[in-house]
């Protein structure tokens, strides 16, 4: 390029352009400097914000009452909070790099769950699992664990809860629940007491009558024997055999001995029957009111139904006829006998109330059957009472739900039944009902093994 070729005016224009370009460049430089300053300010603010967030998150991490552990995808511990350090009884600075599975123990399923959260494609979901935190001393602490990805650097956050207190509370709750069931059973017995008294009173009355009769028999026989002794010991003129026979026959007729001897076996048999009846009712009450074992034991459901029908007889005998078809080969179920008595009692009570409310033509009928379906023992309690409206069917097992008149039902009966079946015995209960025709409750309980 040869600027010498340019005219003076052209050179002046070029100089003016250069000046203009320099001014523009200076303006841009100033603008960029300002932008850079502003960017620096922003970076400083962001750094302060990040520092504050880091401090807050660090404090939250350390202050959480749960044990928190951060691991990488190989499940090596990168960071843990003081609670986790205490849970695993680790000295300061000991854990980083340690394998989390090595700090845990439990069932194969538990360890599989933990290991499934390792690697590039971990199984992360909302589930939790229970196992043990293992300390170097060998002590194992029951824990519940959840795991989530924190969305940074493939890190996993493990929340590990020490559940010792929770398990103790659960145990206490179970004891309280058992006490509650027992209290409800005793309450039911109280309600049934007048009926039971009536059931006992009837045999007691005729036993009393029979004993009075036997007392009369004893008196008569004693008097007759006294007459025999008197005749044999009489002094004076000897009497002939015929005269003696006539005297004793007269006394025998006078005391009505033949009639008394004829009636005595029947009075004794009737009394023994009555005593057996009373003994059976007392035995049923004793069995029914027994608090039962805390551990599950094999229970004969047919016997439970028989016992409960005995105890409750007075509550339904004037309302419904009870038919039962109990499978004589029914296997036992593993359960709490007391709870199962309560279950049958509540279902019979429910059926009785439903029939009393409807008063069906042709009389009330409660049909109870037992049987075995696959590995389940099945109890069906069917009645021809009022039935359940469609709208109420899904709510009948809700606590405090009742369709009975105020003061007649607490709404607890079927809720207790549901809890005993589903929670207490791992079974299932279903209800089939037609409004105005009746209801059938079907309960399936797993048979005991062996």
């Amino acid at each position, binding site marked *: *390029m*040869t*600027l010498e*070729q*340019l*005219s003076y005016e*052209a050179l002046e*224009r*070029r100089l*003016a*352009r*250069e*000046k*203009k*370009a*320099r001014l*523009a*460049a200076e303006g*841009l430089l100033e603008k*960029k400097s300002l932008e850079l300053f502003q960017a620096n300010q922003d970076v400083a603010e962001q750094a302060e914000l990040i520092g504050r967030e880091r401090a807050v998150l660090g404090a939250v991490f350390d202050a959480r009452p749960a044990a928190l552990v951060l691991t990488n995808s190989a499940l090596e511990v990168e960071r843990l909070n003081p609670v986790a350090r205490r849970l695993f009884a680790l000295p300061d600075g000991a854990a980083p790099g340690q394998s989390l599975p090595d700090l845990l123990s439990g069932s194969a399923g538990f360890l599989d769950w933990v290991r499934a959260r390792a690697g590039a494609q971990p199984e992360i979901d909302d589930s939790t699992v229970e196992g043990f935190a293992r300390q170097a001393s060998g002590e194992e602490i029951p824990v519940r664990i959840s795991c989530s990805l924190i969305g940074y650097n493939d890190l996993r956050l493990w929340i590990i809860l020490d559940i010792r207190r929770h398990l103790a509370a659960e145990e206490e709750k179970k004891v309280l629940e058992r006490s509650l069931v027992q209290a409800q059973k005793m309450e039911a017995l109280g309600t049934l007491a007048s009926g039971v008294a009536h059931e006992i009173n009837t045999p007691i009355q005729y036993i009393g009558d029979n004993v009075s009769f036997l007392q009369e028999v004893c008196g008569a026989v004693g008097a007759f024997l006294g007459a025999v002794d008197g005749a044999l010991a009489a002094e004076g003129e000897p009497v002939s055999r015929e005269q003696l026979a006539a005297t004793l026959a007269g006394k025998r007729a006078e005391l009505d001995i033949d009639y008394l001897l004829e009636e005595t076996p029947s009075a004794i048999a009737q009394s023994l029957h009555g005593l057996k009846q009373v003994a059976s009712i007392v035995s049923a009450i004793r069995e029914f009111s027994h608090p039962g074992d805390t551990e599950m034991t094999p229970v004969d459901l047919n016997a439970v139904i028989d016992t409960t029908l005995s105890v409750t007889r007075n509550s339904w005998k004037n309302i419904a006829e009870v038919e039962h078809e109990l499978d004589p080969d029914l296997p036992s179920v593993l359960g709490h006998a007391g709870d199962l008595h309560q279950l049958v009692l509540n279902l019979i009570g429910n059926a009785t109330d439903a029939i009393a409310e409807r008063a069906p033509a042709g009389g009330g009928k409660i049909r109870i059957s037992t049987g075995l379906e696959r590995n389940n023992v099945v109890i069906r309690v069917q009645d021809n009472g009022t039935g359940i409206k469609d709208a109420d069917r899904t709510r009948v097992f809700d606590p405090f739900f009742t369709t009975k008149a105020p003061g007649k039902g607490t709404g607890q009966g079927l809720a207790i039944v549901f809890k005993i079946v589903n929670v207490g015995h791992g079974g299932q209960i279903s209800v089939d009902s037609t409004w105005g025709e009746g209801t059938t409750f079907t309960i399936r309980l797993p048979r005991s093994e062996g």
Partner: protein
Amino acid sequence: MKGIVFNEFFGLVDETFGPNMTETIIVDADLPNEGGYTGVGHYDASEMQSLVGHLSARTEVPVRDLLLAFGKYLLKSFSRNHANYFQSCSDIFQFAQAIEHQIHVDVLKLYPDAELPRLAPTLESETRLSLLYRSSRHMADLAEGLLLGAIEHYGDTVDLERTDLPDEDGDQVARFTLRRR
């Protein structure tokens, strides 16, 4: 368009047609800033089209030929001032693939307001690479010149073929195909 491109263009005109031609076309173009461009400033691309148009009119050299020559000239300037980009690639295929994903990314870091063409690369085989050019600036001739300059820079025996495609939403679209011989 960045001011550096205008200043490089003036350098080319000074060297090829003499400084008087530069002054003439600046006057002819009646530019808003009277031709005072600063390298990092941002200016309307239509000013370049006007300058090239007036240069073509004064020299009777077709606009396409002028833009091809300017592309080669500009590439030399880039290779001098931004040697690291050229050194990081061993051949034209690597360089062509780095334009969109590395060079343009870095340009936008420094100049967020820069309006760059898109050059989508497809390596069709070991000996064949296509670049789909798309730009609202309608400067495919300049892009072609730049690619020819890059081929010269790497000294590769590569043929460049250009296929003009229909415009899309006002953008000029063309496919450049590079074939190793």
